[in-house]
C-alpha cells in the first residue's frame, strides 16, 4: 500500500523532471545558437575592422619604404589566352608603357606571408579594404587575401584575391552587384592599378581553373556564394585597363 502511494508520487515528479531537462536543454541550445549568430555577424566584423586600421598603417609604411624596380616586359610564352571576351582596349596613362622602345613595367618585391600587399577599392560594391599576402584562415580574418603563387596586382598574369562574404567584416558582401565595365582599383606600392570587370560567374570551390595564369593582366576576385553558405564560389574577373603597367602589358612585348 505504502509502496503504491510512493510510486504514484514518483511518477509525476519524473515527468516534471523530464520536462525541465528538455526545457533547459532547449534554452541552452537556443542561447548557444544566438551566441553563434552574434559572434559570426558582429564579433568577427569587429575583429576584422580593428585589424584593418593596423594594416592601413603598415601599407603606408610599405609604400614609403619599398624599393621599386623597372623591368622589361617579356611574354611568359606558356600562358594561355583568358577564356573571356574583352572589349576593345582603352588604355589610360601609363608612364612605363609610354617608352618608345622596349615595353617596361614597374615591379615591386613580393611581401612576406601575412604582410600587407595593398588596398582594394570597388566603388560600386562599397569595398575599401587592405589586402594581405595569403588566403589562410588567419589572413582572411584580417583582410582580403592575395593567393600566393598567382600574379601580384598590376603585374602580368592573373592576380587572385579572396575575401569573406558574410563574416569578418564581409568585404565582398556586395560583389554580386558588379557588372561588365565596373571599375576595381588596386593600390600597391607601385601605384594604383585599375581593372575593368569582364565577367561574373558562380563555380564550385574546387574549380581551380579560375586561378590559372592567363596572357595579359587579370584580376580574379573570389568569395562564398550564396550569402551565408560556403557551398559555392562567386567569381568576378576583371582585366587591367589603367595604371603604371597597363600600356606595356596590353601592348605586349
Amino acid at each position, binding site marked *: 500500500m505504502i509502496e503504491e502511494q510512493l510510486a504514484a508520487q514518483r511518477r509525476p515528479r519524473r515527468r516534471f523532471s523530464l520536462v525541465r531537462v528538455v526545457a533547459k536543454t532547449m534554452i541552452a541550445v537556443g542561447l548557444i545558437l544566438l*551566441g553563434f549568430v552574434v559572434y559570426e555577424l558582429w564579433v568577427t566584423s569587429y575583429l576584422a575592422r580593428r585589424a584593418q586600421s593596423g594594416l592601413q598603417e603598415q601599407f603606408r609604411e610599405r609604400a614609403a619604404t619599398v624599393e621599386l624596380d623597372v623591368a622589361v616586359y617579356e611574354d611568359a610564352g606558356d600562358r594561355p589566352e583568358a577564356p573571356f571576351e574583352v572589349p576593345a582596349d582603352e588604355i589610360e596613362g601609363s608612364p612605363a608603357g609610354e617608352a618608345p622602345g622596349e615595353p617596361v613595367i614597374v615591379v615591386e618585391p613580393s611581401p612576406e606571408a601575412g604582410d600587407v600587399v595593398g588596398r582594394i577599392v570597388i566603388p560600386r560594391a562599397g569595398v575599401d579594404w587592405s589586402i594581405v599576402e595569403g588566403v589562410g584562415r588567419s589572413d582572411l580574418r584580417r583582410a582580403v587575401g592575395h593567393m600566393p603563387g598567382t600574379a601580384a596586382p598590376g603585374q602580368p598574369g592573373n592576380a587572385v584575391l579572396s575575401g569573406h562574404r558574410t563574416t569578418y567584416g564581409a568585404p565582398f558582401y556586395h560583389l554580386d552587384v558588379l557588372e561588365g565595365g565596373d571599375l576595381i582599383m588596386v593600390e600597391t606600392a607601385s601605384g594604383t592599378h585599375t581593372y575593368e570587370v569582364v565577367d561574373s560567374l558562380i563555380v564550385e570551390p574546387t574549380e581551380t581553373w579560375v586561378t590559372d595564369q592567363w596572357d595579359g593582366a587579370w584580376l580574379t576576385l573570389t568569395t562564398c556564394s550564396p550569402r551565408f553558405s560556403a557551398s559555392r564560389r562567386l567569381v568576378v574577373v576583371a582585366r587591367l585597363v589603367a595604371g603604371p603597367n597597363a600600356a606595356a602589358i596590353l601592348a605586349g612585348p
Partner: protein
Amino acid sequence: MRRLYSRLPGPPWARVAELVIAAAAVLVLLVLLYEWLGSVLVDTGGSIG
C-alpha cells in the same frame, strides 16, 4: 549556478576562482566551436581549391 558553487571544494575565494576559470574555459570552447562552424557552414573566406 548556486548548486554548482556549493559543490565546489575550497574556501569561498577559491570557489569563485574555480567558477571564473570554468566560465573562461567554456567561453574558449564556444569560440572554437563558432569558428569551426562558421568556416565550414557559413563562410570559408571564398578561397578556391
